[in-house]
Structure formats: structure tokens, C-alpha cells
């Protein structure tokens, strides 16, 4: 377990200014400056050069400890956990306890309008609808929870899509190097400056799927294809710098095969920034999905996401503000927490990637 990772003992005492020459912070001049992608505009690709490998197991354990020490990150983790759990189990529980489903439209005419939270049809206090109902009398809490399912699912799966594309693209470009790398990165540069979202909008508006399911799949692909660019850049940067570090040279010198080098040495070392970026991509993707739903190109009824719920709520904001507020606040809270969690992960896993 330990023999695959060379231990590099540093002689600096932690916390005290080191007298060893500091790694140069000169920018990567051979690339056109890399404008950081907004979601992690704060992550500086060039500082990823200076990862030091310590004993394998303690890196993750150290990171975990560091993460737990960060109160905001813990708060984020807890909230995200709660929301996820609620979204997964919520609709089912509500159905079992009250018989209400997210799309249950009451049959009584008098209930076919929007009620404020905690109110029943005659205006008295009731526990039935803690978040109120929407225009057609559907319970808002159930809808918000189900919306959570969809939003989170879109966020996670799209991020996975972009991860797969980005990591492979970046790793190949980085490891192969040379002209191939050059060309691949030029492509990324050009794609970067394109109005990706605009084309995605055109794509979605043209290929409106008939089924809500189909639309979801389209969304996964479309959203995933928007964020892979920066992931590719990061992974490539990592691989480039790791490629020439001593432990790789040593591994090669002792006869370790190329495949093993990539999978047991290089990839694990890229995991840090990849995890961080993935965690920070999820809120961005969710925002994008919400924005697409707002425009009408996102999730289609009967499925709902927080974005589409908020959009519906905007219509009646003056009279039934809770229709916008509950989905909006839930979404904001989740994104808030995800961002804190991502920040905390970044501090824990790769402090040098941190720019604040």
C-alpha cells in the first residue's frame, strides 16, 4: 500500500516559514492565460503544480480531519445531507402519511386554488400543507421535495457526465503531450470563448423531447457538455506537472508499466482537484438547469425541479409569494451549502488550489 507512493520527507517544520526555495509562481506562459471558469474561477491551475505526496492513507485522513474542523463546510455537508435525504424519502413518506403525492390534484373545486402555508381551506391553522399549495391545489412541500429529487439528480448526473468527458480528455492530452496536446487544448480554448449556452438553448428548443424522461436525458447531456472544459484543463494541468515528478520517474525507472502509472499513480493524485471541482460544478449545473427551466427549455411537467417550481411561482408573486419563496429558498440554501462544502473540500484536499 505504501510502497507505490514514494514518501517525500520535507524538512520544514509545519507552520514555520520554510527556508527551502519556494516553488515558483511564474505563470504558465506557454498557454494563453487560462481564464478560470466561473464556478471555480478561484482555482488556479498553475498552483496545482506543487502537490507534495505524503504517506497515502494519511492524506485522505488528514483531509477529512481538516474538513471536519471547518465549521462552515460541516454545516454545508449537514444541510446537503438533510436535503438529499428529504428529497429521496420525502415524497414517499408524505404519500404514506397523508396520501398526498406531488401531482395530486384535489377533486373538490374549492381546493383548486393556492393556499398559504399552514392554512386549510377555511382559513384555519392546519398541518396538512406546511408550505401551502400551488394554483391547482397541489401540496407544495411534496412538490418541493420531488423537485429536489430532480434538481439533485440533474446536478449530480450532469456533473458526472462532464467529469467523465473532462477527465479523460484532460488526462489524455496531458499524458500524451506534444502536438496532440497542443491541438486538443486549442480546441478547448476556442470552445471556451464560444457562447456555449446559446447553442445549448438552440439545441434544447429544437429537440424538445416528447416525454419528460427524454427531456431529462437531453438535459444531462447538454448540461454535462457545458462544464467539461474547465475540468479537462485542470486534469491536464495536474497530469502535466505530475508526469515529471520524481515519483513517476522513479516508478518508470523501477519498471512499473504505463497503465499502472496512470491508474495507480497519476489519477489518484488528480482526484483531489477533481473532487473539489466536481463539488463546485454541481451547484453551477443546478443553476443552469434552473435557468433553462425558467426559459421553458428545462424540465417539463409533470416532472418539476426547483427551477421550474420557482418559475411557476414568479407568475403569482404579488398574491401568492410563497410559491416562489419556498422553492427559491430551498434551492438557494442547497446551493449555499454545496458551495461551502466545496470550499471546505478545497481547503482540505489541496490548500494550494485555494485562492481564498
Amino acid at each position, binding site marked *: 500500500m505504501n510502497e507505490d507512493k514514494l514518501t517525500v520527507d520535507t524538512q520544514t517544520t509545519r507552520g514555520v516559514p520554510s527556508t527551502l526555495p519556494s516553488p515558483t509562481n511564474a505563470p504558465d506562459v506557454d498557454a494563453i492565460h487560462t481564464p*478560470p471558469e466561473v464556478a471555480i474561477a478561484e482555482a488556479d491551475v498553475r498552483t496545482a503544480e506543487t502537490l507534495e505526496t505524503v504517506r497515502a492513507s494519511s492524506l485522505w485522513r488528514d483531509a477529512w480531519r481538516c474538513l471536519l474542523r471547518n465549521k462552515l463546510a460541516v454545516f454545508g455537508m449537514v444541510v446537503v445531507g438533510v436535503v438529499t435525504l428529504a428529497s429521496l424519502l420525502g415524497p414517499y413518506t408524505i404519500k404514506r402519511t397523508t396520501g398526498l403525492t406531488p401531482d395530486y390534484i384535489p377533486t373538490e373545486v374549492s381546493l383548486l386554488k393556492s393556499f398559504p402555508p399552514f392554512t386549510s381551506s377555511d382559513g384555519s391553522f392546519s398541518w396538512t400543507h406546511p408550505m401551502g399549495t400551488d394554483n391547482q391545489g397541489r401540496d407544495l412541500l411534496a412538490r418541493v421535495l420531488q423537485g429536489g429529487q430532480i434538481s439533485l439528480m440533474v446536478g449530480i448526473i450532469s456533473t458526472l457526465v462532464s467529469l467523465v468527458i473532462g477527465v479523460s480528455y484532460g488526462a489524455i492530452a496531458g499524458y500524451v503531450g506534444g502536438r496532440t496536446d497542443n491541438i486538443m487544448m486549442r480546441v478547448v480554448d476556442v470552445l471556451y470563448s464560444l457562447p456555449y449556452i446559446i447553442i445549448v438553448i438552440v439545441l434544447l428548443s429544437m429537440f424538445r423531447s416528447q416525454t419528460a424522461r427524454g427531456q431529462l436525458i437531453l438535459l444531462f447531456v447538454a448540461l454535462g457538455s457545458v462544464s467539461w472544459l474547465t475540468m479537462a484543463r485542470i486534469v491536464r494541468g495536474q497530469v502535466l506537472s505530475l508526469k515529471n515528478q520524481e515519483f513517476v520517474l522513479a516508478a518508470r525507472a523501477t519498471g512499473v508499466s504505463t497503465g499502472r502509472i496512470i491508474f495507480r499513480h497519476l489519477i489518484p493524485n488528480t482526484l483531489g482537484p477533481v473532487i473539489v471541482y466536481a463539488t463546485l460544478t454541481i451547484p453551477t449545473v443546478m443553476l443552469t438547469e434552473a435557468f433553462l427551466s425558467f426559459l421553458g427549455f428545462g424540465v417539463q411537467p409533470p416532472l418539476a425541479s426547483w427551477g421550474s417550481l420557482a418559475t411557476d411561482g414568479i407568475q403569482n408573486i404579488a398574491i401568492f409569494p410563497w410559491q416562489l419563496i419556498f422553492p427559491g429558498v430551498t434551492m438557494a440554501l442547497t446551493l449555499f451549502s454545496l458551495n461551502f462544502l466545496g470550499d471546505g473540500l478545497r481547503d482540505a484536499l489541496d490548500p494550494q488550489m485555494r485562492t481564498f
Partner: protein
Amino acid sequence: MLRFIIRRLLITIPTILVVITITWALIRLAPGNFYTGEKPLPAAIEQNIREKYGIDKPWYQQYGRTMWSIVRHLDFGTSLKYEGQSVNAIIARSLPVSAAVGILAYLLALVVGTFVGSIAALKQNSRWDYASMALAMLGISVPNFVLGPILVLVFALTLYWLPPSRWGGFPSVNLILPVLTLSAIHMAYIARLTRAGMLEVLRSDYIRTARAKGLSEKAVVVRHALRGGLMPVVSYTGPALAFLLTGTVVVERIFALPGLGNYFIQASLNRDEPLIIGIVAFIAITLLLMNLLVDIAYAYLDPRIRY
């Protein structure tokens, strides 16, 4: 440097053409047509329409005609939905609206963001720091189409301080809410970036040298730290433009502004091919040019960069 600029400009042209082609292809490949409504049209009427708009000809001819008129005359044709209006005219009319909102929003974000971020970095871990970063985090987490209506609810429908929507020309008080809504997220990002950049610079060796020279803290910050610390903000401008764009779309929809974004969405919903292509091409050119400008600015500001 000059070679770099020329090289970039040269790449721009084929890139735009590729973008246009892809957009055109997407529109054509999609099922359905722009004239398809709820009811199927009688064949004769359909034939008329196809003849009128020239879509009865083979696809490569149509593609050729479209591209030719674009390349030769920069003529993107006539809108399919807005009778008789040329795409160029529509763009010319709606551009100032979007530009006004967008530029004002970004300027506001720059001013407020860099100021807040710098102070936060200088007073690291103070209450001001925590408060402003928390606010910034909020700014990133609240979608702009949630923030917009809430602002409208508070300032227009409850306090009656500002008009809720509509375009009132430039400058007018109608601009305030859209600009605020649009700039919020960028303010937040810029504040965070500035704080990050400043913190990193303040930790660097050359700042230590500046202090060792006996300079006052103010001189150290203003003369030495600020320049390097604000670099991330310049880098941010590139991707920010793309986000500004999508933000403009949302803001124009919410506040019913007759801007480029609104027309774009309408065109997409209407399958108004010439208009879609026109706007997409325009946006692409603008983005590419602005990114080039940002790169040039970056090289100008950072003497270490040489193209």
C-alpha cells in the same frame, strides 16, 4: 503581440462560420417546422409557404444561399416571424438595450466587488470579512430569476419606489432593478476573487520585500499589492461575459425589456431561423472579440506575459 492578435482574428472567422453552420444544422435537423402550428396545414398552403421562403429547394442550395449572403453582405435575411423586418435591423434595435443593462451591471459589479473584496482581504477574519463573504456566497447561490422578482416584490410592488418592468430608455429609473439583478452574482464572484487575489499577493515574497524596505502599509497595499491582486478579476472577465449574456436573457424576460436576449428566446421558441442564426453569430463574434480584448489587457497589465 501583433502576430498574436492577427492569429486570433484569423481563427475567429472560421470559428464563426462553424458556429453558424452548427446552429443552422441544429435547426434543420430538428423535427418540425417554423410554420407548424396546432393544426396541420392544408397541402396547398404549405406548398405556398415553402415556395415563398425558398425552403422547397434542396438543402445544400439553401445552406449555400444563407452562407453566401452572410459572408458577402453580412446579410442575415429577414425574420420569419416579424414580417418584413430584417434580422440586422432587429439586432441593431435591440442591441443598445442589452448593452446598456449589461455594461452597467458589470461596471457596478466591478466597482462594488473589488472594493468589498479588497477590504475583506485587508481585514482578514474580521467581522467585515465574514459578513461580506457570507453575502457574496449568498449572491452566488440565489438564482437571478429568483432575486429579480423578489426585488420587484419589495421595491416595486410593496414600497413603490421603482417601476416593476418595461424599458424606459436610457438613462431611466427603469434600469435600476434589472441592473441590480444582473450584477448581483458578478458582484459576489468579483468580491471573492479580489479577496483571494489580494490575500495571495499579500502573502508573497515581494510584499515581504516591500515591507522590509520600510514602506508604510498603505504604500505596500496600494502601490505593490493591488496590481497583482486584481489580476484574477481581469481573468474573470472572459467567462463573465458568457454568464452576463445568459443573465441578460433572464433579466430581459423578467422585466420585459426589448433586448437581444429576449428576441433570441422568442426566436428559438418560434423557430425563426434567420433571426436565430443572426443573433447567435452576433453573440459569438462579440464574445470572441471581447475575449481577445481581455487577453490583450491581461498581457498589458502583467509584464511577465509575452505573446
